[in-house]
Structure formats: structure tokens, C-alpha cells
């Protein structure tokens, strides 16, 4: 008798930042586009470098590579446009990536308490364990600002 185990597979997009790959839920992805002109203006959100204009919409650019791989991308091949949630609202954000993106289906392993805030979960692909990114924690916004403030608060230790 064979036992069929039902595994819930989900769709993800793999993105490359330098030598490393990460994953985002495919339902968050809008499109992958060639780099276009960056418009810059004064602001104080240092994680954002400017905006691009795409089909009449203005989209902020956030290079997350420094947080994830420790250095800014020197080569940008594409912008991966993804949805980032702000409460119930969602807005597009452009993430510079250094290589092709790939659509895969894989099983999601939930995050654990010890994982960093930007890790939404894990998946296994071609023998690699890849982080599934939590854009709400990785890119600036009210949630990320609150989280940074909370992390900078000294923790009270009680005996």
C-alpha cells in the first residue's frame, strides 16, 4: 500500500543579490523590468535612493542588498517590482537585483523565533536553503520604523 503525503507547494520568485539568492512570494511580484532613470529629490529615508516612473506610476527604489549581503550592488540588471503592505494598503516598491529571477514552486518552512525579522520563512531549492523575504521588515515604512525603535530600546532584565 502506498501512502500519498499531500505537500502544500507554493509559488515563489527567486532573486539574486550578488552571489546569494533569496525568495519572495510570487503573489507579491508585479513585474521584472530593466533599470530606468532614477529621479532623486531631498528626503530623510536613507534606505530609499529615489523613485522611478513606470506606466505613469511613481515607484520608490529600495536597495536591500546592503542589509542582506553586506554591500550595495555594483551591477544592477533588473528592478523587481513587488508589493509591500502598509497595513491593509499595498504599494509597489522596486528592488534592484543583480541577475535573472526564477519562478519556482516549493514547500514553505515557517520561520522560527530565532530568525531575523526580515525572514518570513525558508524554502529548499537545488540543495540550498533560501530565505523567504518579509518586505515589511526589510523596507522602510511605519512597521520597519517601529521595529527599529523597538530594537533600539534597552531591554529590562529582571532577576
Amino acid at each position, binding site marked *: 500500500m502506498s501512502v500519498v503525503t499531500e505537500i502544500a507547494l507554493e509559488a515563489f520568485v527567486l532573486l539574486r543579490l550578488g552571489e546569494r539568492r533569496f525568495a519572495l512570494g510570487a503573489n507579491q511580484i508585479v513585474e521584472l523590468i530593466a533599470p530606468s532613470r532614477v*529621479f532623486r*529629490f*531631498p*528626503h*530623510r*529615508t536613507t534606505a*530609499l535612493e529615489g*523613485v522611478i*516612473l513606470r506606466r*505613469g*506610476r*511613481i*515607484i*520608490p527604489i*529600495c536597495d536591500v542588498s546592503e542589509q542582506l549581503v553586506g554591500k550595495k550592488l555594483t551591477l544592477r540588471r533588473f528592478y523587481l517590482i513587488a508589493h*509591500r503592505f*502598509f497595513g491593509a*494598503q499595498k*504599494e509597489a*516598491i522596486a528592488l534592484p537585483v543583480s541577475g535573472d529571477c526564477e519562478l519556482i514552486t516549493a514547500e514553505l518552512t515557517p520561520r522560527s523565533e530565532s530568525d531575523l525579522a526580515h525572514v518570513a520563512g525558508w524554502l529548499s531549492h537545488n540543495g540550498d536553503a533560501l530565505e523567504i523575504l518579509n518586505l515589511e521588515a526589510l*523596507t*522602510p*515604512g*511605519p512597521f*520597519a*520604523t517601529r521595529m527599529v525603535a523597538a530594537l533600539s530600546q534597552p531591554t529590562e532584565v529582571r532577576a
Partner: protein
Amino acid sequence: MQAAVPSKARTPRAEQIILFRVGGQLFAISSASVQEVRSIDSLTGISQEIPTTSVRKVRHTVRRNEQTHYVVNGTVHFGLPATAASLIFFLRHTPTALLVDGIEKMTTMTYLQSLPQAFCHEERDWYRGLTPLDQTVVPVVKPEGFLSTEELTLLDTAVQAEFKKKKADTAEAHE
């Protein structure tokens, strides 16, 4: 036979704006928010220096129509490299006068996108939103965003203290 329902044509709401530069950077402001534009030269003799406060972007006041206007250095406000201002905008509904490099042109905007929420610091107070214009993206400033309530309170206090000091000095000189 049913009559065709006429489709509602969406007419974009147009707004007159002034495109201007501060520190070499292009900005837009609704022309309805600007009461008067004057040359810097015309302020000689009517502007007053104010004591140093923590509001570094304001160093002078101009008294006009019984109202004190705080002269805001736009380059300091936006953190831009210093440039020589040639014009000053007296803004409506706020005691702010803004130093600007110059006016680029007056035009019409038909679309204003609110600032993406990823921009989550002071810029949310600075801008009403962004507008795509002539193959570029221009931030549209909020006239009331140049001076916060706290900054206005600090400036009012400093100006009143200076006024009292001058009055006392004058009285002393007459005695």
C-alpha cells in the same frame, strides 16, 4: 432597444503650479499658496536679523502687513548644498517666506501622486506628493511644512525676547 448610457469622461483636475529651484533641485508649489514673489534685493532694509535659535534655517524676519514672516533658507531645510537665493516667496496661511534660487516656469499639473508610504520621515511633512512632469518627477511642497508648530513657537519666543530687549535698551538710552 436600450439607449446607450453615456460614459463619464474623467477630466483630470488641473492645478496651477510654480516650478522653482532650491539648492539646484527642482520643486513645485501650488501658485494659490504663494501670496507674493519678490526679489531678494527689495528686502534690503526691511528684514531683521533674529537671535540664533535651534531653528538654523531661519535667520531673518520680514514684517509685512502687520505680520511677521520667518525667512526660511530652503537649502538648509532640505539639506541641500548652499546656493545664492535670488527670490523670496511669501506663502499664504503660514508666516513663512521661502528663499529660492529662482523660478523655472509656471505650469499646470493634472496628476498628483501621494508620497509613497515607504518615505516615512520628515519628507512626509515636506511634500503633498509627487507629480510626473515633462519626463521627470517633481516633489510638490506643502507650504505649511517648512516650519513645524514647535519651530514657530521657538521663533516667536526668540523674536518677542529680542523685541523686549530692544525696547528696554531704547528706554535706557532715553534716561
